[in-house]
């Protein structure tokens, strides 16, 4: 007779990493009570340790592939791939936060707990085998991030960001639930596999199916910041603490794509004839609005907000292309995007110091003279975001457009590369301002070991994947088996 403990461990093994994160998050809240204000940074390192442990457990679970808890949890290579991306996003997010929170004077324990809860939610989203689990994961993530966005309590912009995000987010959740209930009404099940089975034999001309699909597209379009559901992005990205913005631009967006991929390439695959053109249309709109509005921004966080909209557009191109190529390209892309974007935010954070926001793009003037390392890092991230070769961003875009061409969406690839060329203008403007303008005065940067570590990780990743993407690509291709 196995003891209760063993039994618990056995049944909960598939969600052990999530459990670890929850336990770490709860203990963070507890330990927080016993720490002085100056010691809160320890919580950051403690949370990071939790992430590492969870990642190791996930690594050990890599052989597992199956359904658990009555099919509500899927542990397949696809989910695991995304979990690793979330670990990286959360880990980098924590590293970016440790010193930044002290400068902003919002150094509270619950910050890290919320980040861990959000990560846990994202992992559930990637693992969800059921609409209910999916929704639970999504809300766990969303609620945590709403609070994180508002963690600068004294700052009205931060409050505005949190309220805006909450109201619009709740609205989109409502639409999602409506779509899900329609699906449930038709299929009689909330299980993703069950819905797939139903759709295979269903009459696809039924407008209710189309309505349900559209509602899911709308609500996840909101999460990944696709146009026209992007209105919240610039304000929230600008108002939220920069470390949260960095985390938000990577984590929840990637989670949104994980769900979109699973839904459209697996559950709703029979609807592909309808969905392809809708997704392609969204992709074009998203790339257009993101890239064009980014051109005129003067605040670096707003610019990166529009840039992150544009990048969702590129990923949607891969989603519209569909098929194994399309799926693998989106997975590679969001992974690369998450790291390089957080790297760019890392440099933005360096410019933040007590009494100065460092968010205006003119604050970068002359950085190439006053701080060569920071400027050089930003240069690499900007070229990578533009998609210039030798850096990971190019590899990501290349495989996206390649998938599109193979799916006979050549027009979409052409539109994509042209917008990508337009984007060069605003990314290069940052480089220009750093290297070609004279510094306004001595720029003092805030550096800390944690920030340096985050930047070192992201820049190494950007260069290594830019030159040798083979292994990551192969891993992404091997991981799509779960949804194909």
């Amino acid at each position, binding site marked *: 007779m196995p003891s209760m403990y063993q039994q618990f461990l056995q049944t909960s093994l598939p969600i052990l990493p999530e459990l670890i994160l929850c336990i770490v998050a709860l203990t963070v809240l507890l330990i927080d009570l016993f720490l002085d204000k100056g010691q809160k940074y320890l919580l950051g390192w403690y949370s990071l340790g939790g992430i590492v442990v969870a990642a190791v457990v996930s690594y050990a679970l890599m052989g597992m592939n199956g359904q658990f808890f009555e099919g509500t949890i899927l542990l397949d290579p696809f989910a695991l791939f995304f979990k690793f991306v979330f670990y990286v996003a959360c880990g980098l997010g924590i590293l970016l936060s440790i010193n930044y929170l002290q400068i902003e004077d919002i150094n509270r324990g619950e910050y890290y707990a919320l980040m861990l809860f959000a990560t846990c939610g994202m992992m559930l989203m990637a693992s969800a085998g059921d609409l209910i689990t999916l929704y639970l994961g999504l809300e766990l993530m969303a609620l945590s991030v709403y609070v994180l966005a508002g963690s600068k309590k004294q700052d009205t912009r931060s409050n505005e960001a949190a309220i805006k995000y909450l109201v619009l987010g709740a609205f989109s959740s409502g639409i999602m639930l409506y779509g899900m209930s329609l699906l449930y009404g038709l299929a009689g099940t909330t299980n993703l596999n069950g819905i797939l089975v139903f759709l295979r034999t269903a009459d696809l001309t039924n407008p209710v199916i189309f309505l349900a699909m559209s509602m899911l597209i709308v609500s996840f379009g909101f999460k990944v910041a696709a146009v026209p559901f992007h209105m919240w992005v610039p304000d929230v990205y600008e108002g939220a603490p920069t470390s949260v913005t960095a985390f938000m631009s990577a984590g929840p967006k990637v989670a949104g794509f994980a769900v979109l991929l699973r839904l459209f390439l697996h559950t709703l695959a029979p609807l592909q004839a309808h969905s392809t053109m809708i997704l392609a249309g969204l992709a074009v709109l998203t790339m257009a609005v993101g890239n064009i509005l980014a051109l005129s921004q003067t605040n670096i966080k707003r610019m990166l907000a529009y840039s992150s909209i544009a990048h969702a557009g590129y990923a949607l191109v891969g989603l519209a292309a569909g098929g194994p190529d399309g799926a693998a390209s989106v997975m590679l892309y969001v992974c690369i995007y998450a790291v390089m974007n957080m790297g760019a935010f890392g440099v933005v954070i360096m410019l933040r110091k007590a009494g100065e926001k460092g968010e205006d793009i003119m604050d970068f003037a002359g950085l190439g003279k006053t701080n060569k390392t920071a400027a050089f890092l930003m240069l690499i991230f900007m070229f990578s975001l533009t998609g210039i*070769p030798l850096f990971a961003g190019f590899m990501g875009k*290349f495989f996206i457009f390649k998938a599109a*061409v193979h799916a006979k969406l050549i027009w979409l690839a052409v539109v994509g*590369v042209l917008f990508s*060329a337009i984007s060069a*203008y605003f990314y*290069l*403007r940052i480089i220009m301002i750093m*290297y*070609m303008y004279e510094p306004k005065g001595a720029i003092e940067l805030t550096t800390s070991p944690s920030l340096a570590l985050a930047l070192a990780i992201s820049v190494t990743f950007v260069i290594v994947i830019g030159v040798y993407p083979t292994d990551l690509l192969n891993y992404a291709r091997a991981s799509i088996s779960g949804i194909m």
Partner: protein
Amino acid sequence: MLELKLHQLDFPLLSLMIFIPVLGSFLLLFIRNAAVVRWVALAFSVVEIGLCLPLLLNFDSSIPHMQFGENLPWIAAWNINYTLGVDGISILFVALSALLTTISIMVSWTAIQDRVREFMIAVLFLEAAMIGVFVSLDLFLFYIFWEAMLIPMYLLIGIWGGPNRLYAAIKFFLYTLVGSVLMLVGIIAIYGTTNTFDVLKIMNHPFSYSFQLWVFAAFFTAFAVKVPMFPVHTWLPDAHVEAPTAGSIILAGVLIKMGAYGFLRFSMPFFPDATIAWTPWIMTLSVIAIIYGAYMAFAQTDFKKLIAYSSVSHMGFVTLGLFALNSQGLEGGIIQMLNHGVSTGALFLAVGVIYERTHTRLIADYGGIASRVPVYATFLLIITLSSIGLPGTNGFIGEFVILLGAFLHYKPYAIVASLGIILGAGYMLWLYQRIALGKITNPHNEHLADMNMREVAAALPLVALVFVIGLYPNAAFNVMHVSVSNLIQHMHAKVQSAPAVAQTVTTLLGN
């Protein structure tokens, strides 16, 4: 058909040529002293020239194969390989790149005082990318080098350029990028039909006529912007004028040759039918570029801008020759690319030398300086004459052979184009007259210092090449001849698959 011949030497020479400058720029990261930086950069660029020697000496010009081949798997899932090789065409450009990089470093010796280390890193990095472009035999690899090149060039113009550098740098970058990304879609489309990025395999793949037309157009945008052909040439005057001397030399000497090289290496052998179909348009654009560039050159008051527009005109000759699609035209076009690299490189060097002393590029600020700087004036005269195409200089050979090729099948174009030579003589001699002859008109130039030893040393190889190619052009023709005839035969053989156009082709390729 073309195949990859593995290197006869025991070491991967071409990879070495790509990575030596990269290594150099990496080492420079750790050197703070500007003087040391200059010497180290120079040393690396000279080593690069040194590496050209075994390359040229071991190159077998009697066979059309790609030589010094290297092939390593890179991204196996998509069949992307690291494939390198040179033939009689690309080897010349590799050598030209190595030479002009060294000259660029020499002319920047005192001209660049600000951020010397970063400057030299950019130049060496650029050299690696340029050589990579010329030796890649995998489309993906080629594209990587092709775009990576934009980064250092953008920084060279943007950081060390003239007063209007920001505008020029971003214009250069955006023009080239828009063209390039369309080519990227074309490259992906090729992969979609052939399932390979291997240039040699793609050369032998028959593409449908409509596919050829479209993908040729995609490649054409990239190459036409780079050449630059009329009407997408407008970035060139800005970029040339604002770039530092080294940037101008490399831009004019190597970068804009890549467009024409792209036509030769990719467009023509991949899409012979489309090439034929597009030829009348390209010939027309070439002639417009020749006349328009010359006409604009007359109107310029800025020394550098005049040379920039003369480049537009001269590159018109290059594309005119290439798209004549016969051996004279092609070989003339290639040799004219080398000539233009030498002559225009030297002209920009001349501008750089005098600009460093006077800090003005306005032609009106000079006049009669020959009496003060005789060595400089002689150098300028030789280059002017070479640019005009005086018999005995390199320019003559190029333009003569191009017109010979064009006359065979495109008489009207050739006749109009020859007007360009007369105009060229006009604006160049007039330029020389206004700069060097007569009495000193600007009192500031009374005590102008002549070229120093370093500048003479930088100029000397170019002057020597003017006469070597001018008097013994076979030195270059011999290297490329077999490769060019192979290209023509290849197109001839491949184009017959489309009977509709075969007729025209047979008359075109004729002999």
